[in-house]
């Protein structure tokens, strides 16, 4: 290889190889382009804009879509937020909502349903799991319509009809127990996510292992306790973190069911506040800057948690180098 002639030849080959590489890269970027453009327009630019909006005083009265003409007021919105007497209540409302819904429905009930459906006939288990998908594939408006009738006052409400049937007093649930229904309504949607993850985790436990534990003399309950649960610790952690973020940022069902009420912010949560302040005419005057300040907190939490998922949940194993190089 030290001969000049052969050296020259291989350097020409190297140049040709660079050209062909460039051509193949351009092809790849062509395939990526549409997705890339959409991501830039609807993810990256909006993140920048929301940060910017949160330091302006943009409101209905001085609304403009021209970023250059907005009035920058620094951290004033964040100061207002810290001093807002209701922000504290909304903050604790949000923690309550996420913790209670997550622990009762998105994790516990999901785990119970997946354990129950994996311990019965396969086909029947599948049907039950499929039924739990219904709330997730129903439009929130229709889903909430159903729940509104569920909790309506006597004699129209379904629950109150049961109460009457059992000789119990009837209630105006919207005013007496709004949180109960906000939690149940969101919880019934949330069950399916954990249920699917847990079920696939349970079903991916080798059959031999499950049979071995029975042969070794454990009962079915003991098998759940000593074999299945320890083996699905990782999916459990994943569901907890992933659903925490989903609950933190979901507000549509609450908006449709109680719209944060009744009364002053009784069931208002953080993400709903951001929406109310900036995009809903509920307050008459839409405060874009102030609403964005609420949204920025959620965006930050979202970015941090999303990066954590990627790092923690074995991202590297998901990436295999492609095995065709030419084009």
């Amino acid at each position: 290889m030290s001969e000049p002639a052969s050296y020259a030849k291989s350097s020409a080959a190297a140049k040709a190889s660079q050209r062909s590489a460039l051509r193949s890269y351009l092809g790849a970027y062509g395939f990526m382009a549409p997705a890339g453009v959409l991501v830039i327009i609807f993810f990256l630019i909006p993140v920048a804009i929301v940060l910017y909006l949160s330091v302006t005083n943009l409101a209905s009265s001085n609304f403009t879509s021209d970023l250059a003409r907005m009035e920058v007021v620094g951290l004033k919105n964040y100061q207002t937020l810290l001093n807002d007497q209701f922000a504290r209540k909304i903050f604790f409302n949000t923690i309550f909502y996420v913790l209670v819904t997550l622990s009762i429905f998105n994790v516990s009930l999901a785990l119970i349903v997946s354990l129950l459906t994996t311990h019965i006939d396969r086909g029947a288990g599948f049907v039950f799991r499929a039924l739990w998908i219904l709330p997730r594939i129903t439009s929130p408006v229709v889903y909430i319509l159903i729940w509104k009738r569920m909790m309506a006052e006597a004699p129209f409400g379904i629950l109150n009809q049961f109460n009457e049937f059992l000789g119990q007093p009837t209630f105006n649930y919207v005013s007496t127990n709004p949180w109960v229904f906000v939690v149940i309504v969101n919880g019934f949607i949330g069950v399916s996510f954990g249920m699917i993850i847990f079920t696939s985790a349970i079903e991916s436990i080798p059959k031999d292992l499950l049979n071995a534990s029975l042969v070794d003399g454990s009962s079915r309950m003991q098998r759940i306790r000593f074999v299945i649960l320890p083996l699905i610790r990782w999916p459990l952690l994943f569901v907890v973190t992933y659903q925490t973020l989903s609950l933190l940022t979901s507000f549509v069902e609450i908006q449709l069911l109680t719209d944060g009420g009744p009364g002053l912010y009784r069931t208002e949560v953080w993400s709903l506040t951001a929406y109310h302040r900036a995009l809903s005419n509920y307050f008459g005057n839409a405060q874009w800057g102030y609403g964005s300040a609420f949204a920025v907190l959620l965006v930050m939490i979202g970015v941090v948690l999303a990066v954590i998922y990627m790092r923690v949940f074995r991202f590297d194993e998901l990436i295999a180098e492609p095995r065709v190089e030419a084009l």
Partner: protein
Amino acid sequence: MEIRIDNLTKKFGDVVGVEDLTLHIDDGEFVAFLGPSGCGKTTTLLTLAGIYKPTDGLIRFGERVVNTVQPKDRNIGMVFQSYALYPHMTIFQNIAYPLKLKKAPKSVQNERVRQVANVMGIGDLLDRRPGQLSGGQQQRVALGRALVKEPDVLLFDEPLSNLDARLRLTMRGEIKHLQKNLGITSIYVTHDQVEAMTMADRIAVMSGGHLQAFDAPDELYDRPKTRFVAGFVGNPPMNFLDVEVSQANGGFLAQADSIRLPLGKTRGEAAAARAGSVTMGIRPEDIQIADDGEVDGEIFVVEPLGREDLIDARVGPHSFILLADTEARRRAGERVSLKFDMTQAQFFDPQTERSLLWHQ
């Protein structure tokens, strides 16, 4: 089409696929790449196909350097281990696909596909889909698809390994026959040394990304140039034993513990030229159980193969694989005397693993 590979290196990041491979293949020749899995033979084949880009070195088809030529412009045909038939197309569409991409007129496509299909004996299957075909039929379709565009080079990537033993035998003959008739330069990757020995004009034995030997089949068998080649070619594999070769009473003696084997002059001299112990190799068929054997041992395991028995005989700490007539009805635990045909013994340098007899 003549193929010249010069100093070819292909790396995947830090992992070496193949390193500094130089190989010249004559026009119309049938060459087999033989080696254990991970030896770099498939990497080399895919680099020839243009699927991988060489990290270094040159590949020439005839006079043309093809390093950066796209696969579709190399005019090659390839048969894959999995056949890689397009499941959503009929057999006809599968075979016609290369012609369609060449924008050949419909009538030409029709005619060619039927001709190829008839040659391959699948003329009545053209309307079916790959999923409805047996393994052997799929194999023929894959071959037909590779041949239909009249390639300059045919590449085979372990094409027979998914077939049952009987079918493999038939297809082996058919592929060899077809290749000789059409005279297309062919490269055939396999880990099955019987396939390589029976089909190829020359065999390139590879290991760890390096070319170990490139020779005609019987050369490889009778005169292995490295210990790897000696051990890889032949079934059951060659027995190896570290021995001291010394000159005594005008003859030569190979010696390991209690084993003492007299040696002819040519082999003895070559082996003795290397100071210290050397690796002796001897094929199972060159060891006999005989009354007048030089070495006493004990049968450890007998494995009946049908036509003969495979016997693992132990001599002290050493183990020898040999073949014996089933008629003899050998039993484990039996004490026997072994006779070695030392005119066939091979000798290798234990460090470099090169042959002490056949190195250039």
